[in-house]
């Protein structure tokens, strides 16, 4: 299982959507592709699925060039790009069956897929489904095709929170057996499901890292503290005046983000001071990736491991 981008460049007239992008994904697992809107995520995924042609460079799927040999390259890939539409004239069952048959996979176990993905009524026409249902049907169709590589472009975009949870759990299952290449702007989603992340901005890869070390770097020096009731800001400010905390951000009357040197003893000191004020919850900042991401896209580009 391998996806390789070699000097991948895509221009739309004078606009450069991808600028000399290089990466190499190999083996099972989930690879995140993060970037703001217009960064080049979908363009990359469309090139790997032959929906777009690169201006220069190569996109290789298991060493097969997607432009020179699209049919062979796509044999390994199941793709969910943007907001796909299952054939409206087909029922759910027919669509999944068709997806399997055109790849020569024979009749799929649709009932098992229904249970796994919580699919709607199998006899229902695809045109009558909600957006979330269509996505699940589409995912079922991809699973029926049993590809070794899944390219998922913002898979949970536009879904309600419950559907997003279902999707994330599915990806956690899929990545045990397959390579997942997943683009998202939902950082907590990437943090949750991905093993490795590429940051892309303005068509260029600006950083890459495994999620664990990235989280450590940016998470360990901030905690979010939620109080039972509103607290006076000067009590928090005192932490910075005493030199225990570097700075703080007031998120609401009851929630503060406190940035410190990252040491465990400093963390303990801070909590010691705050507990008498009525602390409800303390968590490491879940904004860690967002922070890294924002720093990166604001121009502080990093090379190699972040």
């Amino acid at each position: 299982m391998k996806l390789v981008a070699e000097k991948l460049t895509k221009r739309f007239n004078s606009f450069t959507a991808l600028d000399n992008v290089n990466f190499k994904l190999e083996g099972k697992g989930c690879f995140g592709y993060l970037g703001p809107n217009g960064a080049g995520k979908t363009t990359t995924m469309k090139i790997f699925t032959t929906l777009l042609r690169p201006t220069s460079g190569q996109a290789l799927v298991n060493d097969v060039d997607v432009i020179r040999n699209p049919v062979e390259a796509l044999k390994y890939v199941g793709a969910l790009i943007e907001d796909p539409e299952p054939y409206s004239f087909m029922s759910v069952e027919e669509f999944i069956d068709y997806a399997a048959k055109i790849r020569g996979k024979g009749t799929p176990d649709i009932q098992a897929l229904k249970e796994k993905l919580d699919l709607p009524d199998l006899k229902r026409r695809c045109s009558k489904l909600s957006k979330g249902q269509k996505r699940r049907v589409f995912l079922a169709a991809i699973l029926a095709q049993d590809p070794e590589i899944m390219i998922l472009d913002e898979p949970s975009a536009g879904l309600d929170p419950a559907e997003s949870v279902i999707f994330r759990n599915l990806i956690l299952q899929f990545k045990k057996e397959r390579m997942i290449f997943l683009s998202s702007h939902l950082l907590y989603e990437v943090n949750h499901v991905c093993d490795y992340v590429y940051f892309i901005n303005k068509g260029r890869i600006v950083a890459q890292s495994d999620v664990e070390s990235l989280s450590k770097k940016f998470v360990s020096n901030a905690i979010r503290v939620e109080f039972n009731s509103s607290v006076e800001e000067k009590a928090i400010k005192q932490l910075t005046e005493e030199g225990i905390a570097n700075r703080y951000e007031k998120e609401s009357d009851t929630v503060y983000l406190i940035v410190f040197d990252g040491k465990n003893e400093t963390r303990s000191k801070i909590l010691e001071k705050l507990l008498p004020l009525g602390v409800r919850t303390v968590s490491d900042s879940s904004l860690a990736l967002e922070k890294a991401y924002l720093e990166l896209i604001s121009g502080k580009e990093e090379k190699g491991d972040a």
Partner: protein
Amino acid sequence: MQFTTMFYVYLKSYFRSKRFLVIFPIYILLSSLSVILYFAGVVPKPSDVYSYTSEALTNFVFATSLAAGVFAGDAISRDFSREGFFTLTQPISRARIFVSRLLAALAVCVIVIFSDFYLVGISFGYYLFGQVIPNIYILIGLGLFFVFGVVSFALLFSSIFKSQLVSGIVTTLVLWFVMPTISGILQFVNIEPWFLLNYAGSAVQAVAKNTYPPHYQEIVVPNGTSKITLHLYNPTVPEAVAIIAFYSIISIIAGIIIYKRRELKEI
């Protein structure tokens, strides 16, 4: 296997579409009109099987053009919608998809056209006169080939335009209005419209006639004090076949090239 599966699915999409449910009965009704009027005593019995069959095929070119516009006009452009995110990411060459769509559109057009213009026309002619025209096989063969040419041409437009609606409308307009208008204008300037597909289609009706009309006729029409000379051309059968073949080959090749190069930028 892959090809058959696709063909079957595309054909099914037509049979389940509202346009099929609307157009098919309308075509049946229109082609049966002469039969209905005959039994109602409104029109007299045609003089012979030739004139009857020829009359029955009067609107064949128009009917074929409309059917092709409606059914084949969006056969390819549908892939430039969100459906394309599925179709075009499958390991199937676009040439294969194109051909399977062409055959599905052809099949539905043949069903629509032949089940009324031909089936009603020929069977009722047989009922009235106890015979069919001797050229029946040429009539059917040429008719089928013409439908193939028109559907191929429609698929070319379908691969050019991104919007399903636009491609359907443009296809129908070109076949219904642009080509007939050019043919009409050329009658005044004595140029044989050998480069128009609808010109080739007129051979289908000509085959049904008792005597095949001459290749060229000059008709002088009085217009007040002056006269207008009309130059009427009728294609020979080989000429019609050549025109249809030319349109089909060029349309299919160009259509496949455009389709293969088409990118799904924004939808």
